């Protein structure tokens, strides 16, 4: 798996590509932690663009859960977008789609992200 971070205004975009399973979950968790580090105040929102994510196992889901908790503690918006149908199914079945905001694509997610400095 490959993970890129991009900054759009006050938002950090996390762009994972490939398969998120037990083997790659630790790496993904580390990268997600990085996404919340931003000087001086941290990002206003973290959006994970999952368009390139082909597969998510239950160990992979845990990384999303940890990120959602980190966001909650940091008072930062957190959302996913661009889920492929099979990945979307995993989020639906596990009930994660009830506790994590999911947008259809990056444009929709960025449109809902806070833009101005508070």
């Amino acid at each position: 798996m490959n993970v890129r971070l991009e900054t759009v205004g006050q938002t950090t975009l996390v762009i994972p590509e490939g398969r998120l399973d037990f083997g790659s979950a630790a790496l993904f968790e580390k990268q997600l932690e990085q996404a919340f580090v931003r000087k001086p105040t941290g990002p206003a929102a973290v959006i994970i663009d999952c368009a390139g994510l082909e597969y998510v196992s239950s160990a992979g889901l845990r990384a999303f859960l940890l990120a959602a908790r980190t966001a909650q503690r940091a008072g930062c918006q957190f959302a996913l977008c661009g889920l492929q149908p099979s990945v979307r199914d995993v989020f639906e079945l596990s009930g994660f789609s009830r506790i994590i905001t999911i947008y259809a694509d990056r444009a929709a997610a960025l449109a809902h992200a806070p833009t101005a400095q508070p």
Partner: protein
Amino acid sequence: MAPLHSVNAAVHALAALLIQGRGRYARTFENVVLALIIFSVASIGIDSIAGLPLWATRALAIAEVVIVAVFSFEYLLRIIAAPRKLAFIFSFEGIVDLLAIAPFFVARVDTRWVRALRLLRLLRLLKLQTHMLETTVAERTAELAAKNALLEEAQAQIKAELSVARELQIAILPATFPARPGCDSAARMIPATTMGGDFYDFIELQNGQVGLVMADVSGKGVPAAFFMAVARTTLRELASHYSDPGTCLARANELLFRQNPMDLFVTVFYCILDPTSGVVRYANGGHNPPLLRRPDGSVEALNGAGGLVLGAMPGVEYPEHSVRLLAGDRLVMYTDGVTEAFNTSDEAYGTERLVAEIRAHGDGAASDLVERICRSVATFAGAAPQSDDITLIVLTWKRVEAATLP
């Protein structure tokens, strides 16, 4: 012949001790030789000074005899100790050794060029350095080997303990479904190579009802195994107190959320079967919906999926659903280790293959279907390693004949 024999043996023993050995004697001998080399090089320099007093020249001549004697002795020992003698004699080392002593023997005439040849002994310093380096490398290698052996031993112990833990984990799973007239059920868990967190359970409840649990803990290894044990005990305990599956899962979720230092979670399908009526009441905490095969061969997924996994968040409710089994219905509960078994081309086994297998096999014992599915998954996966636990329960319900009712 005999004395010659024993001399031969003694020389060989000496070669083994001083040249091949790695002990105290070999090191002392090496140091003596090194000191003599340094001394001999120095003496060549002193010897070339004009107008030395006679006593000094004599002393140097005696020293030269001793040095050449020791070097010759060492040279012979090296030839004896060498596994391939000719190769040693013609090697760089061998030639240097010979050049260090040869001038003494070939030229009793003390000409200047022969004296100059003696300077070739400087090359011996090089050789000795290599020797000492080799000794150091050999010592370090031995130390490393000892440390590696310790590490390997420790790793083997950890492996053995993990495998015991894995066996215990499997041993606590129930072997058989409680005997109920009209019910035929079988279960199987095939553990992955790393310790996983799948489990199933059959729980005897009041009024002859039976609770069935199918669960999958996120992650792997020791944390997942511990969480699995906690989850299983918690569910078992709650099942005896709460007669509705939704409340049972909601309570379990609260408890698991509170005793969850590793932030793990578990997907749980929990149902309660009334063996007399065939009514199954269930709640689903983030688990794949079980598949229901009707006697006409149609297969459907139980609705009510999408409840949140247990242990992730407090205050979650799990609505109760129910389905009435008809005579001959089969309920198949499974973990994603079945549908997400990958083959060598990275394709997943998938729900469709599982449904096809269930559709094709309506008759026969529940254990037969369990076996068939396991075999089908194994055939599909081929040489690909099993990355996740594979767990299955098949429950077949037949109408209970009046005669068999108590």
